[in-house]
């Protein structure tokens, strides 16, 4: 199945898996802070580590798939790629809007700014994951 994938589909898989891999420990750490099991300084260090891990992972893994199929990697996006991008941006928009509305609702509850900020960040990550996930579905199904 891997050999049947285009460079862009592999690239989407890489971004989806990496983002999921860094989001889970990061938000788990946030829950630990909320329960008083950790502090925000440790969370900040974890955040920095995960961001570096994400960037390095993206660069290394994209370099690997580009070496495997250099011509495919150099090819510009075609009309199907662009259509998939447009459709999945719409998915991300609705996910982000839902997250923004959730944050507005949470502002009316007695929560600290850290929790509100984390919720906003969570909405951004969910929107990005929704976009990448929808892209993977469209690459395999009818557009």
């Amino acid at each position, binding site marked *: 199945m891997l050999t049947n994938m*285009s460079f862009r589909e592999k690239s989407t898989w890489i971004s989806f898996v990496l983002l999921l891999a860094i989001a889970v420990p990061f938000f788990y750490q946030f829950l630990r802070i909320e329960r008083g099991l950790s502090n925000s300084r440790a969370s900040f260090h974890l955040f920095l580590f995960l961001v570096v891990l994400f960037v390095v992972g993206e660069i290394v893994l994209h370099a690997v798939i580009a070496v495997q199929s250099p011509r495919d990697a150099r090819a510009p996006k075609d009309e199907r790629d662009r259509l998939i991008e447009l459709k999945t941006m719409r998915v991300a928009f609705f996910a982000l809007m839902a997250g923004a509305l959730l944050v507005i609702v949470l502002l009316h509850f007695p929560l600290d700014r850290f929790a509100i900020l984390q919720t906003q960040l969570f909405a951004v990550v969910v929107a990005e994951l929704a976009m990448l996930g929808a892209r993977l579905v469209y690459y395999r199904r009818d557009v």
Partner: protein
Amino acid sequence: MGACVVQNRIRRLRFDHGEMTQQALADRVGVTRQTVNAIELGKYSPSLEVAFRIARVFGMPLEDVFQFQEQR
């Protein structure tokens, strides 16, 4: 009005044109091999521009390559 389906004879035409590969057709049309595969399988309806380019590769009129059918 029923659902509309765009069918095509690309796979057959590739075979008739010296067993042209999907990659070779994709290169001549200016799309990826995966897009040619999606068009062949009916998973993606190409733009008019790409449809005309595909027909031109095979030296045939558009309607000999793509058929528009309305399902009732």
